[in-house]
């Protein structure tokens, strides 16, 4: 129990990116998630922290894991939940993002969880609505809760993040997960090595504090964590990506490459996986894979985030101690 974490107070009403958070804020979310993980071990897996509050999942892009995880997180906090998606809504009638959000908000909601194909969408909404906004992925910009659950999972595995060498491999340029992971890992003191072909990994990432490498085999034996990204065929232009076989040969986590890793290397993937493409199936399902642990931890991290942004949204402009 350190003094600093005891005295720290969370005051952000929105969670838009990891870039904007301090190391202390990130640690506070991870520590809060620790407590929420305990809730999921109870026979009654529910606490009344958000009772009477309304959470809206507004997804302008497909998602299974993230949407389900946010839904369950909201329900475990006793919030009411509305699922809104692009299909079958007024969005298909041409309503703008802001109009849709304002209309949803007019129904009296407390937290808007947003996924949108445009970078910056969550940030724009946070400026026009009064409720809390949580970014669940905006274009290729950030996916902060994925970044947080990756940090949580790494910290749980190694007991620390500082000093670890983490490789993020594959389609970096299209990946919001890579950006959130990069910001979070750098802030908490890890060394980040980005690995991918020049077409999917421009040198500009060096400006964000990462080492950029185009030859996976050059670093394979040095890293503690390998985070294999999904090849996002829906976002890739054909000129960036010559052939699946070549990609697997150069950048896939194959059995041959896995043999050359550190003995205790930890393998991660944000899902959904292209089995046999960026990652070999038996590695993904093996004992050094944290892939399902990531999903489990995502729930605790999202509970922590919903709880924290909501209590900050409630803040009156005074600070007094609780009366017993």
């Amino acid at each position, binding site marked *: 129990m350190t003094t600093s974490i005891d005295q*720290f107070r969370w005051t952000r009403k929105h969670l838009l990116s990891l870039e904007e958070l301090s190391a202390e804020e990130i640690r506070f979310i991870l520590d809060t998630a620790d*407590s929420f993980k*305990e809730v999921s071990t109870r*026979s009654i897996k*529910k606490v009344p922290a958000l009772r009477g509050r309304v959470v809206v999942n507004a997804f302008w892009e497909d998602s299974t894991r993230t949407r389900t995880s946010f839904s369950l997180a909201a329900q475990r906090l006793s919030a009411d939940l509305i699922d809104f998606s692009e299909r079958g809504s007024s969005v298909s009638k041409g309503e703008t993002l802001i109009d849709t959000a304002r209309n949803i908000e007019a129904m009296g909601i407390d937290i808007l969880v947003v996924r949108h194909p445009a970078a910056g969408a969550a940030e724009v909404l946070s400026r026009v609505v009064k409720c809390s906004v949580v970014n669940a992925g905006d274009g290729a910009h950030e996916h902060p809760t994925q970044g947080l659950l990756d940090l949580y999972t790494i910290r749980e595995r190694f007991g620390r993040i500082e000093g670890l060498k983490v490789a993020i491999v594959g389609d970096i340029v299209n990946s919001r997960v890579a950006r959130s992971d990069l910001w979070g890992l750098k802030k908490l003191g890890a060394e980040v090595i980005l690995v991918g072909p020049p077409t999917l990994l421009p040198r500009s990432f060096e400006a964000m504090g990462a080492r950029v490498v185009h030859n996976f085999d050059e670093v394979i034996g040095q890293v503690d964590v390998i985070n294999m990204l999904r090849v996002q065929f829906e976002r890739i232009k054909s000129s960036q990506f010559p052939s699946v076989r070549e990609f697997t040969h150069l950048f896939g986590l194959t059995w041959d490459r896995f043999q050359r890793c550190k003995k205790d290397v930890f393998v991660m993937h944000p899902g959904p996986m292209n089995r046999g493409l960026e990652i070999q199936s038996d590695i993904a399902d093996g004992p050094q894979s944290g892939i399902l642990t990531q999903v489990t931890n995502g729930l605790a991290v999202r509970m922590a985030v919903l*709880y924290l942004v909501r209590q900050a949204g409630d803040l*009156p402009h005074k600070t007094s*101690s609780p*009366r*017993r």
Partner: protein
Amino acid sequence: MRTQYDKSDVQRLIATLGHVIAGAFDPDKPLNIVGIRTRGEVLARRLAEILRGRGFRDIGRGVLDITLYRDDLSEIGPRPLVRPTQLDIEIDGRPLLLVDDVLFTGRSVRAAMDALSDFGRPSVIRLAVLVDRGGRELPIQADFVGLRLKDVPDDHRVNVRFAETDGRDEILVEPR
């Protein structure tokens, strides 16, 4: 009104409290002692020690963090870190002694009982506090009280400090 109680006062109050509690339960039967974070946890630990010295053989210990169960979340400003609740004990059908440092409005105790009911169904729940300062907002009373303070002004706090968490044992009545 006396506003300061030092180390020897606090230790004497806890010893007396432990003595009274020991007389109210059967030492040959299981008893769970659950403290409310943070200082209720310390007091629970000390009371359990006294009861063991009095021949209680089957004491289960647990810690409740009640932050998520409070009903005044919007009134208290930014909150401290939520910490895990630790109740790896058999709760159903056994007596449970709930322990906190100060009893004031009763809202913490209500929150603690809500939390407990998510874990199981004790045969009875009794409440022990080091200080009862009055000012209840709910129909909740303690079964065991170390020190009753009357007429504490509403704008004052009763601060209990323990060596384990604060470096020294003391009770202070201070302006907020």
